């Protein structure tokens, strides 16, 4: 089983790749529609501006093969922007449409707290999670973002709070996504990636 990393030029692809290598996983980077169509498992890392990710998916013709793969049940993990991209729209770039797998939008966290939400935070568990299996309930994960999915949490298995509750971990059938960076979240992050790889293997 090989994980295909959707490489649209995000800064954290190398970190994600390295984190997977440490777990003994085989991965390849790709930005071709053909590779995504043939992928056994997909990982969409993302950091920076929402528009850069959505535009890259459009320009490289990746939107259709990605949506098709998700519908066929290919295991998918979205990281940070890779979670935000699953919703309808984002306040960060209202003119662009997201992948629309989940209803609702991505909004700015409130100005009453320091932004970006930067650093290590804990999760509020909503229901049992495959990604969080074996991870202590008080574990910390590393976040670095100013926007979040705040109003559509039916698919959330865990929330985080920074000024307001927002989706931190999403799981729906073969679709997984996290707002934090597991590749930067020490042992807890490594275990989460391992859980995703285990799901991919058993799938």
């Amino acid at each position, binding site marked *: 089983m090989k994980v295909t990393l959707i490489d649209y030029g995000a*800064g954290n692809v190398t*970190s994600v790749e390295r984190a997977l290598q440490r777990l003994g996983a085989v991965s390849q980077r790709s930005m071709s529609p053909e590779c995504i169509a043939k992928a056994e498992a997909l990982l969409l890392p993302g950091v920076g501006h929402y528009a850069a990710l959505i535009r890259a998916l459009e320009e490289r013709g990746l939107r259709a093969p990605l949506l098709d793969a998700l519908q066929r049940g290919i295991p998918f993990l979205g990281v940070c922007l890779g979670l935000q991209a699953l919703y309808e729209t984002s306040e960060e770039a209202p003119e662009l449409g997201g992948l629309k797998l989940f209803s609702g939008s991505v909004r700015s966290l409130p100005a009453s707290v320091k932004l970006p939400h930067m650093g290590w935070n804990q999760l509020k568990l909503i229901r049992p999670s495959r990604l969080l299996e074996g991870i202590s309930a008080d574990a910390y994960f590393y976040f670095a973002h100013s926007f979040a999915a705040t109003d559509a949490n039916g698919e959330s298995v865990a929330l985080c709070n920074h000024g307001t509750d927002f989706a931190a971990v999403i799981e729906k059938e073969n679709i997984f996504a996290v707002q934090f960076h597991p590749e930067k979240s020490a042992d807890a992050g490594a275990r989460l990636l391992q859980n995703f790889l285990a799901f991919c293997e058993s799938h």
Partner: protein
Amino acid sequence: MSLAHRIIPCLDTDGARVVKGVNFVGLRDAGDPVALAARYNAEGADELVVLDIAASRDRRPTFLATIRRVAAELAIPLTAGGGIRTLDDARAVIRAGADKVTVNTAAVARPELISELSREFGAQAVVLAIDAKRIGDHWDVMVRGGRDSANCDALAWAQQGVELGAGEILLTSVDRDGTQLGFDTPLTAAISRVASVPVIASGGAKLPEHFAQIFSEGAADAALAASIFHDNVQSIRELKHFLSAFNIEVRLPC
């Protein structure tokens, strides 16, 4: 449940080796950056900062190689800086494996640099490093390694930097740097009050009490130190247990 206060070891390098010295005088070798990075990653550091304090053009490839080797050891975020003057400089550092870049003197000279970096990499990747020194009733921004005054108010510069797109402020007290007398609490509290982004306090740390004070009274979001960690004066693990006993939220390593 809230954001943990971060403890950040800093590696000042001459490009290849970790060096130390007060105010850039009498630099001496303090170790291999890769070995130190691996140690801090294992001890529960929340992030690592690597700076090229020589920042000379011809040593640049060496520094980038150091970043690549350090990044390979880490499962925590990495910030790199020193001598970043252009978008290309920042891109090279991020491609080498850094999650964030710091800008200092070059941003004072040309503040638009902050916006350019923020547009390209996102605010969360842009750390504005401010070296501040008390002058009369205010704090002046110092440049070129804390030696020259930029004749500009540190609080105003912090606010301007955030408006331009900085996502974090790395605040070094030039008065306290290297003294081990404790962080500059009034300076940090003042900057933290005016800045809407997280503030990393730096300069003067020695005792665990210094860290407790900068988080409680200084309202710092993170605290950075170098030689006390390199020289084993303070272990990160013990420091975090000390802070936790003071009800200061930290991420305890397992």
